[in-house]
């Protein structure tokens, strides 16, 4: 487990590289939606400030060298009293689950002192969202702020959309607040003696808990993985309902949050858009920014395919989990939680503003950036435009940007390098020719040397450099 920086690090991320497993291939750099990864000296390297914690590299690395960061379940021993916060996605991992209490009771048997469902808090967030959107109709559409990767993406790439983020705490944060307040009241313990432990479908909540956006400090103490907890609960799951303590207190809206479209469904509105998968949401954000999408009041965005059920810390196939969730809530009431019954929630809204972080800006000033971009354009024109990734950057354009930022050199491009070597070889051939003319007599070594150089020059010339005159819209 990596040591966390106790200081609030605004670019902290929850994916790390297992260097021994990294083969230096280009799979991760090609799939990163924010072009945050480079391969240098045979190993991948994640650029903190570009990373939005979407977990795509974890999925795509064929060598499993991208490791999600999260806490081991043993963290429950660090506290006098612990409360488990199960994400509703946890329920969708199990087959034939008819009653959420089966899972919640098993969590107690596993060693937690109490449980509080994130889905219960989700219903409070839905209620607050409905009211907020109603009160601010003129500023619609609003963008959901529950997925930390979405906030991070908007923070670095879509400054004009920051004001559209719904300024409401994520369900897990609200759950943590309620859980701690209730545990303190129940036990008389100090806040730091109580461990609020989130059972999470994704690692982006790890970064969130350590370095939240929208609020100063999170009430979540630790984040453990659904995939770790899932098998440990199985032996404790008793299906005899007469022996279960009634613990579950959430309805269809709350549990439905685990699926894409679930949050939007909880708003009981009709003109919404719900997009999932990082590539799809990037497109939606572009179109929102250009004001090409009309008539929407709410935009739900989930970085993972299928929503939270598609998180990298889950076990079940996202689409099967989606169906299981729907089956589980079929006969549940719409909602079981209301803000007026939860005085523990002092303020469900964000206390901090999310600030634009212009991490992709080239220079420190406009003038400097203008000069640098002109260099980027000139450099890009020298590269073959294959976006082959051999240089370690995902595209020729990104390599040019890296060079201008001082993080790479043109010779990192194998085509430029080959052209440069061909140049050198031609020069040596010329020199060798001059030497031959001035030398007298037969020198078999010199002839051999000449023939080598000639062959090298011819072979290098025969490779050529890929033609840049391919059809390009942008010249």
């Amino acid at each position, binding site marked *: 487990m990596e040591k966390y920086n106790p200081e609030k690090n605004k670019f902290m991320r929850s994916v790390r590289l297992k260097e021994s497993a990294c083969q230096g291939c280009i799979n991760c750099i090609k799939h990163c939606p924010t072009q945050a990864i480079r391969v240098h000296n045979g190993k991948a390297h994640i650029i903190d400030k570009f990373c939005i914690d979407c977990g795509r590299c974890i999925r795509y690395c064929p060598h499993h060298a991208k490791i999600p960061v999260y806490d081991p379940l043993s963290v429950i021993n660090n506290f006098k009293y612990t409360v488990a916060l199960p994400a509703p996605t946890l329920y969708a991992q199990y087959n034939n689950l008819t009653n959420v209490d089966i899972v919640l009771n098993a969590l107690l048997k596993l060693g937690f002192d109490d449980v509080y469902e994130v889905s219960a808090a989700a219903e409070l967030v839905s209620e607050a969202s409905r009211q907020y959107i109603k009160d601010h109709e003129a500023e619609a559409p609003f963008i959901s702020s529950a997925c930390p990767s979405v906030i991070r993406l908007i923070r670095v*790439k879509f*400054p*004009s959309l920051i004001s559209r983020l719904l300024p409401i705490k994520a369900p897990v944060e609200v759950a943590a607040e309620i859980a701690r307040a209730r545990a303190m009241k129940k036990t008389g313990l100090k806040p730091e003696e109580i461990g609020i432990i989130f059972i999470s479908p994704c690692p982006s909540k790890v970064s969130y808990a350590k370095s939240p956006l929208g609020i100063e400090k999170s009430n979540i103490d630790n984040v453990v993985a659904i995939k770790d907890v899932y098998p440990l609960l199985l032996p404790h799951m008793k299906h005899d309902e007469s022996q279960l303590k009634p613990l579950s207190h959430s309805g269809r809206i709350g549990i439905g949050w685990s699926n894409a479209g679930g949050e939007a469904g909880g708003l009981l509105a009709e003109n919404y858009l719900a997009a999932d998968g990082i590539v799809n949401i990037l497109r939606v954000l*572009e179109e929102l*920014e*250009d*004001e*090409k999408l009309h008539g929407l009041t709410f935009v739900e965005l989930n970085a993972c395919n299928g929503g939270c059920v598609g998180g990298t810390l889950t076990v079940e196939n996202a689409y099967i989990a989606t169906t299981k969730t729907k089956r589980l809530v079929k006969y549940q009431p719409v909602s079981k939680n209301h803000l007026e019954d939860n005085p523990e929630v002092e303020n469900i809204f964000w206390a901090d503003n999310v600030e*634009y972080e*212009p991490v*992709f*800006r*080239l*220079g420190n*000033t*406009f*003038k400097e*950036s*203008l*000069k640098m*971009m*002109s260099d980027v*354009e000139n450099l890009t024109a020298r590269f073959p435009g294959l976006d082959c990734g051999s240089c370690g950057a995902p595209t020729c354009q990104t390599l040019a*940007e890296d060079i201008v930022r001082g993080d790479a050199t043109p010779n990192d491009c194998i085509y430029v390098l080959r052209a440069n070597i061909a140049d050198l070889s031609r020069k040596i051939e010329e020199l060798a020719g001059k030497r031959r003319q001035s030398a007298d007599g037969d020198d078999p070594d010199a002839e051999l040397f000449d023939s080598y150089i000639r062959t090298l020059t011819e072979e290098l010339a025969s490779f050529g450099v890929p033609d840049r005159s391919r059809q390009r*819209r*942008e*010249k």
Partner: protein
Amino acid sequence: MGDQLIFTYIVDGDDFTRAGEASSSVKNKLKMLGVDSDVIRKVAIAMYEGEINMVIHADGGTITVSVSDDDITMVLSDSGPGIPDIEKAMQEGYSTAKEEVRSLGFGAGMGLPNMKRFTDEMNIDTVIGQGTTITMKVYL
């Protein structure tokens, strides 16, 4: 005038799905330059409207965007039919777009008015039967 950056785009005619690529590209470049997001928004919207117009009416054309210390200038040139009545074309809701285009959600008669609204300067140079060149400026 200090340094100036110029980007040129060729807009294909008759392909709605690709309209917006040029404005998207410019938008990303302006973000990398650290241009104010309000200015970026104006440029992106005005340019997108222009791009769509080129596709609908003129079978495509060329867009040149130059960025200087003072402003962003967009020059949109096409070899289309020209605009017979500029005053009318500038009215909100006035459209000569074909029904099939309107059914796709385009041609609402807001193109030119929006281009004017989101830019600080706009000049239309049009010759019937030869084409149109629209120059727009957004100040920095």
